[in-house]
C-alpha cells in the first residue's frame, strides 16, 4: 500500500502576495485568482493543501508576467478577513512606509484599491512551476 503522507496543518492561516511586474506594487491573491491591492480581498488558506492550491493559482499569473515573486505569508482572521501578523507584511499591506515623507504627492493608482483583471490566464498551473511556499523574504542581496 502506498504510504500516504498526512497533510500537515499550518501554524497560522496564510494568504498569498506578490508585486505587480510592471509597477512593482504590492498585491494580494483573491479567491478567484485575480489580484487586489486590498489585503481584505485576499484568499485564505487554512492548511497546506489549500496553500498549495493558492500558490498554484498565483503561479498562473506569475507565468503570464502579471506579477512577480509570489509567496505565502502568515495572517490572522479578523472578521473573516486576512490581517497580516508580522511587521514586514503589515507595512506591505499598508502599501506605504509607516512614516510618510512630507513631500509625498500621491497619484491615484498608488493609493486606490483596484481589482486586476487577470491577463490571459488559462487557469492550469503546472505543478512543476509552483511559486515557492512561505518564502519569508524576497531578498536582493546585491
Amino acid at each position: 500500500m502506498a504510504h500516504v503522507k498526512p497533510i500537515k496543518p499550518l501554524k497560522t492561516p496564510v494568504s498569498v502576495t506578490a508585486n505587480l511586474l510592471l509597477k512593482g506594487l504590492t498585491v494580494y491573491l483573491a479567491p478567484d485568482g485575480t489580484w487586489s491591492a486590498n489585503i481584505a480581498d485576499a484568499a485564505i488558506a487554512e492548511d497546506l493543501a489549500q496553500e498549495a492550491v493558492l500558490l498554484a493559482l498565483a503561479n498562473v499569473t506569475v507565468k503570464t508576467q502579471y506579477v512577480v515573486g509570489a509567496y505565502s505569508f502568515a495572517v490572522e482572521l479578523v472578521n473573516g478577513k486576512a490581517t497580516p501578523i508580522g511587521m514586514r507584511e503589515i507595512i506591505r499591506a499598508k502599501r506605504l512606509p509607516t512614516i510618510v515623507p512630507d513631500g509625498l504627492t500621491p497619484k491615484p493608482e498608488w493609493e486606490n484599491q483596484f481589482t486586476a483583471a487577470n491577463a490571459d490566464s488559462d487557469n492550469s498551473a503546472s505543478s512543476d512551476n509552483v511559486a515557492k511556499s512561505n518564502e519569508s523574504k524576497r531578498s536582493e542581496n546585491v
Partner: protein
Amino acid sequence: MYKENFSPLAPASAPQDVKMYKYDQFDDEFITQRIEQLRSQISRRLAGELTEDEFKPLRLQNGVYLQLHAYMLRLAIPYGQLNSTQMRTLAHIARKYDKGFGHFTTRQNIQYNWPALSDIPEILEDLQKVEMHAIQTSGNCIRNTTSDPFAGVAADELTDPRPWCEIIRQWSTLHPEFAFLPRKFKIAVNAAEDDRAAILYHDVALQIVKNDAGEIGFKVYVGGGQGRTPVIAKLVREFLEPQYLLSYLDAILRTYNMIGRRDNMYKARIKITVNETGVKEFTRLVELEWQRIKDTGFNLPDDQKQTIFEHFILPKFESYQYDDAKFETNIADNNGFDYFVKNNTFGHKADGYTIVSISLKPHGGIPGDISADQMDLVAQLADDYSLSEIRATHRQNLVLPHVKLDDLFTLWQKLSKANLAAGNIGLLTDIIACPGLDYCALANARSIPIAQMIAEHFDDLKKLNDLGDITLNISGCINACAHHHVANIGILGVDKKGEESYQVTLGGSSRKDADIGNIIGRGFSGDEIVGAIDTITKVYLAGRKNQAENFLAYYRRAGQTPFKEALYNVT
C-alpha cells in the same frame, strides 16, 4: 568610461569658470545604447521571453531593485558632485515618476522608492540629458567612487581628490575585467586632514599624502568594509606614486578576482580575502602582479590626465571686503543662525567664502529624504549662492561648497523657509538611517521611526550643542547600510521572535581614529530605545571631564562599565 579623448566643455548651466567633467559623444552614444538595451529587456520580460531569474541581473545592472512596496532605482552621483541642472532633473524625476521625493544614501547616491518598471528607460533618458546614469550602482562590480564632500575647497586638504576620483570613475566604468568580481567593490579617496568619507571602511581606501620630498602620492589601504563583518582597511602601501594609480588598482583587483572566494557570498568581499590570506601575503601578491604590469600595463597618459585635471580647476573667487559687523549682529539677533554658523559651515580655501552643509535631518524629518520642491530650491540656491555646485555627503546631507560669507544670512533665511536650515550637523540628531523595514526587503526592523523618535526627544538645540560632537547611526539589518558599526552610538534593528528589537553598540568611529563599536548588552524594544539613548547621553554628560572631552573620548577613557551600570543596573 575610458576612451581616447573627451571634450573639455563645461556644463551649459554652470557659470563659465566652474568646470566639471563633461560627457563626450562616445559616452552619450554608449548611454543611448544601454537604455535601448534595457528597454528591449523590459519588453522581453513583459512578453515572457525572459523569466524573472534571467531578467533580475539585467535590471540590477541598471540600478533597478525590487523592494517591499515597489521597484527602487539607485543613481550614481560620482564622488557626490552635482550641478544645479542635475539637481533640477532629480526633482523632475521625483515629481514625474515617483512620489515627489528622493533619498540620499551613505554612498553619495540617490534612490527613488517608487518608479514603475515601464518608466525606467524614460527616467534614464532624462538623466542622460544631464550626464547621469545608474550603471554599476548594483552588482558585483566597482561601485561609485566616493570622496570628501568638501573636496577641492576644504581648508584642511592637501590637494583636490576629485580629479583622481574622476580618473578612477573612467577607468572602472565598464572595465571588462572587473565586471564580475566575487562581490561588490567600493573605492574611496580622501585628501583632507580629517576623514569625512569613512574611507577606511571601503574595499580600497586612498589617502592622498605628501612624502618627504614633498611629492603627492597615495597611502593605500585594502579590505575595509561593513556589512555583517565590519573590518578596518589595512595598509598595503605607504606611498604610491600617482602615475601608477591605475596599474596598482589593476593589481589589487586582479589579485582579488583571482583568489577572492566565490563559493559563499558572505565570504566573498575583499575584506575576507585579505583576512584569510593574511595582509602580508595579500600585499606580496599585489606587489608581484604590479611589478609585472607596472610599466607595461595601463597607466593614464599624461595628456589625458592633464585634460581631466583641467575640469577641476577652481573658479576665480571674488575678492571682497565682507561685512564682519553685520555678520556678528545677525548671529546675535537670530535664534538658530548662531548654531547654523557654528555647526553647518566649514573653512573654505578662499577668503570670504565658506562651505555650507544643508542638513537633511530637519526636526521630525526622515534622514536623507528630500522633496522635489526642496531639490528645486537647493538648485536655485546653488545658482544664486554657490556657483551652481552642490555636493551629497555620506552622512546623507547636502553641501553648497562656495558660499560668500556675506550671503550666508540670506541663504539661511531661505533655507529656513523650506525646513532645510537645521543647525545640527555633527550633532546627535544628524542621524544616518537606512530605509529599514519601511522600504527594504532585507530589513529586520524599522530605522526611520526610531530616528524620528530620537530626533523628537533631543529637539533642544542648546542641549544638543552641549552634548557636542557625536554620531548616531541606525541600520535596519546587519548589512549596515547606515554604518551603525562605526557610529559613536550605533543602533542595529534585529528581529527577535517576530518583534522589532534594537541592539546598541558604542565607541565606533568612521574618521581617522577609525574603530568598530562594541555591543553594550541585550537589545531594546522600539518603546525602550529612546530611553536607552537618553541614558547613554546622561552617563556621558555626568562623567565627562569637561565639554572638550567628547563622547568618543569619554567612552575610550571610561569604557563600557558606566553605560552598562546605567542601562542594565549591573554593578
